[in-house]
């Protein structure tokens, strides 16, 4: 018993008493897990459905009742693999019937008898175990049988090819071509409707179309040159020979594979116009199987190299066939070939790479098994699924992405293992919209926005791209969420959930922001550049169209002189100094920028006394830098007078600046609308303010450089000190 896993029973009942009575009855023989309401039961099933062998389910429970659990089990298809015994005092026939309809295996009414419960549990588990075992046995047998017959056919057809001195590719080609053509025929017309099984059967049978060649003497079979009429007559017998061989089989005459193989062997050299051999059948007297293989045979013969000929390019081969150079074929097949022609070479290449042996067969079989619902629980399928899951998990882990799957009903999110670890969330979250941990990770607003985007997608256009801030381990990070909404197959389609992933784009996003920031700034002074300042200013005015704003432009008096005399390095230092001084002295909310050269801009909102504000800034800008005396000329324009058009304001401020310069520099002027001649002139420096400049002996009205000459000797001397 030691090697046998104890079976696990989940008991869902809101009464602790009831749970423990049941646990007590069964605990000796089984592992017991308990859930105190339906929601908890679903959570446990989500996590370990595969390990739970039986569910004992109560009906009346808080949060979610037993019927809710059954519905969830149907939605997730757990009901197919996990037997449910319902235990309840609710014995109203309608309720019991409803429970059976939802897939329960058994119903025990209260008060329950310990022995009865025990027996029913044992029986149910046995029944399910037996069913699983039977399913596995059937699968094994099917597998074994297919494996053997495919193997025999492979051996047989390779013997034929070996005698032919061919590469072994011909069999493979015929098989592939036949399969492709049958599939395409299905698409083109309703006439044949080959099932998957039939297609597989016919293409397998096609592999032995030339089995009769085994009876043809090797000298004829492998003669490099043209065959004589006599030799050709012998060669032609191979189709009939093959058919006779199959006919002579002592058993299996009624096997579909043998019957298809017979048709193909005997008639794959017949032609639609009756000019083929051995029987000269006409039109649809020739079985469609043989018609398809005949066409495949001709196509492959043309496009492959043989002892007596070189390979012909596929397009040319199709042209020759359609042209009737290789005999007449069914017009439908000709159309089929014409439509497929382009895709054949690629499809053939694909198949060459594949190994036609066990692996491929296993996959085909697995596909078949998956399609057969009653086998969906076989261990082999589970193994394949497990393999898929492992693969998925591995790639998910490697990719460092948070991958998730969302279901609308019942609302739940499954997160990849790595993702859940990364975000500090559970892998499976029931009712994520209400989950505190989820809400701490992604804001409700973002979640609703994402849900909204997904539900508004369409089946044709299901992909949604959404950037959101996600809290990861206490820090906020930008993540890009790419999700694909899933829609049901019914008409009209219903939105059922989504799959997707979240990629951390924080670094990229921060880098982008830094680049944007950089692009917005003047590299030397760190102030905004003109373009960006203009945007900001327009934005500010648009937000508060009724406020008063002032825009000032100033430049450094005699800056050219500083540049010329002390070099550009020094000039740059002066500009940096100006920017620093400006930043230090402007109020919060003021936009400042270097407009170009030594010209700066400032822009701010004011309530009243704009002149005082300007005066304060103006005075703060006056001083010295490395003994170079600094003063500025400034022009100011007000929205109060000019409105909020940026260019108008800028132009007016520029005109006022010009007037200030003409007025002798070292001063500021307001644009007053009429002409620059009548602009008001305000004493730039208050008498009560002592500056370094004054201590340096400059005149307090800042008109030291009133002659405005760019080559002031005085300056040169000062610096020279």
């Amino acid at each position, binding site marked *: 018993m030691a090697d046998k896993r104890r079976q696990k029973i989940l008991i869902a009942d809101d*009464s*602790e*008493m009831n749970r*423990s009575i049941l646990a007590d009855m069964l605990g000796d023989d089984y592992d017991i897990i308990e859930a105190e309401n339906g929601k908890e039961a679903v959570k446990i099933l989500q996590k370990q459905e595969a390990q739970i062998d039986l569910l004992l389910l109560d009906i*009346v429970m*808080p949060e979610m009742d037993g019927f809710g659990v059954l519905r969830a089990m149907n939605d997730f298809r757990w009901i197919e693999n996990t037997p449910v015994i319902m235990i309840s005092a609710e014995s109203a026939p309608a309720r019991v019937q409803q429970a059976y309809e939802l897939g329960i295996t058994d119903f025990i009414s209260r*008060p329950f008898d*310990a*022995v009865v419960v025990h027996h029913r549990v044992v029986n149910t588990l046995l029944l399910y175990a037996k069913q699983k075992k039977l399913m596995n046995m059937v699968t094994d047998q099917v597998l074994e049988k297919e494996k053997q017959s495919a193997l025999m056919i492979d051996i047989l057809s390779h013997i034929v090819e070996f005698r032919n001195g061919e590469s072994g590719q011909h069999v493979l080609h015929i098989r592939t071509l036949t399969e492709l053509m049958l599939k395409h025929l299905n698409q083109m017309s309703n006439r044949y409707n080959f099932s998957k099984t039939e297609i597989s059967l016919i293409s397998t049978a096609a592999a032995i179309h030339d089995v009769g060649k085994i009876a043809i003497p090797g000298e004829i079979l492998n003669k490099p040159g043209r065959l004589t009429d006599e030799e050709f007559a012998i060669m032609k017998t191979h189709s009939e020979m093959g058919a006779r061989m199959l006919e002579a089989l002592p058993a299996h005459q009624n096997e579909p594979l043998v019957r298809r193989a017979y048709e193909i062997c005997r008639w794959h050299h017949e032609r639609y116009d009756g000019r083929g051999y051995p029987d000269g059948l006409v039109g649809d007297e020739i079985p469609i199987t043989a018609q398809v293989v005949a066409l495949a045979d001709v196509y492959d013969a043309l496009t492959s190299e043989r002892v007596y000929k070189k390979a012909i390019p596929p397009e040319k081969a199709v042209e020759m066939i359609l042209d009737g150079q290789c005999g007449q074929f069914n017009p439908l097949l000709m159309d089929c070939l014409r439509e497929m022609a382009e895709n054949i070479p690629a499809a053939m290449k694909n198949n060459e790479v594949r190994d036609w042996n066990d692996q491929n067969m296993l996959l085909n079989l697995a596909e078949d098994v998956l399609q057969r619902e009653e086998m969906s629980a076989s261990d082999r399928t589970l193994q394949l699924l497990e393999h898929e899951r492992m693969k998925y998990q591995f790639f998910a882990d490697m990719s460092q992405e948070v991958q998730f799957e969302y279901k609308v009903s019942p609302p739940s999110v499954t997160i990849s293992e790595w993702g859940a670890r990364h975000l500090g969330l559970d892998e499976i979250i029931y009712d994520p919209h209400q989950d505190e941990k989820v809400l701490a990770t992604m804001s409700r607003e973002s979640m609703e926005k994402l849900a909204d985007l997904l539900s508004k997608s369409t089946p044709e256009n299901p992909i949604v791209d959404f950037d959101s801030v996600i809290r990861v381990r206490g820090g906020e990070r930008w993540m890009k969420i790419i999700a694909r909404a899933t829609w049901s197959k019914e008409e009209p389609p219903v939105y059922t959930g989504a799959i997707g992933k979240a990629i951390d784009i924080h670094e990229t996003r921060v880098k982008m922001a830094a680049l944007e920031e950089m692009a917005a700034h003047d590299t030397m002074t760190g102030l905004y550049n003109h373009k960006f300042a203009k945007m900001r200013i327009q934005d500010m005015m648009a937000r508060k169209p009724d406020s008063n704003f002032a825009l000032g432009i100033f430049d450094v008096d005699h800056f050219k002189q500083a540049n010329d005399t002390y070099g550009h390095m020094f000039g740059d230092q002066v500009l940096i100094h100006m920017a620093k001084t400006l930043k230090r002295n402007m109020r919060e909310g003021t936009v400042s920028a270097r407009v170009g050269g030594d010209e700066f801009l400032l822009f701010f909102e004011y309530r009243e006394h704009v002149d005082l504000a300007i005066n304060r800034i103006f005075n703060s800008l006056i001083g010295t830098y490395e003994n170079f005396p600094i003063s500025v000329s400034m022009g100011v324009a007000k929205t109060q007078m000019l409105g909020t058009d940026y260019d108008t304001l800028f132009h007016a401020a520029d005109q006022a600046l010009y007037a200030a310069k003409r007025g002798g520099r070292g001063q500021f002027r307001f644009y007053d609308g009429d002409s620059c001649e009548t602009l008001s002139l305000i004493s730039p420096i208050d008498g009560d303010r002592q500056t370094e400049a004054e201590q340096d002996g400059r005149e307090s009205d800042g008109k030291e450089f009133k002659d405005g000459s760019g080559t002031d000797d005085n300056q040169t001397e000062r610096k020279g000190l």
Partner: protein
Amino acid sequence: MIMTLQECYAALEGDYEGVMGRLRTERLVQKFVLKFLDDGSYDLLTRSMESGAYEEAFRASHTIKGVGQNLSFNKLYESSHLLTEALRAHDIEGAAPLYEQVKADYAQTVAAIREYQASL
């Protein structure tokens, strides 16, 4: 004074033969009878009846009924069964006297079990 489990069942007007028939051993029956004292369903019933949370009262009553049924506490089972059905039908008026009955039966049941417990 010594009280047997059978006498305890008599005191709470339950079916001793019935419960022994289903749960098989006295050990098991004793275990759950004593455990009944810790069951929170009655508290929940009292709280929800008094606050008018009848959905919750229905579930609590339903649970008491289930437990009573499993342990063959017939008297308590009967009254809680009636209460459950009244609450299921949203018959609040009708539920009031039934609730009183459940209260009385519960008190009787608990008193009997306590006495039994004390004599162990």
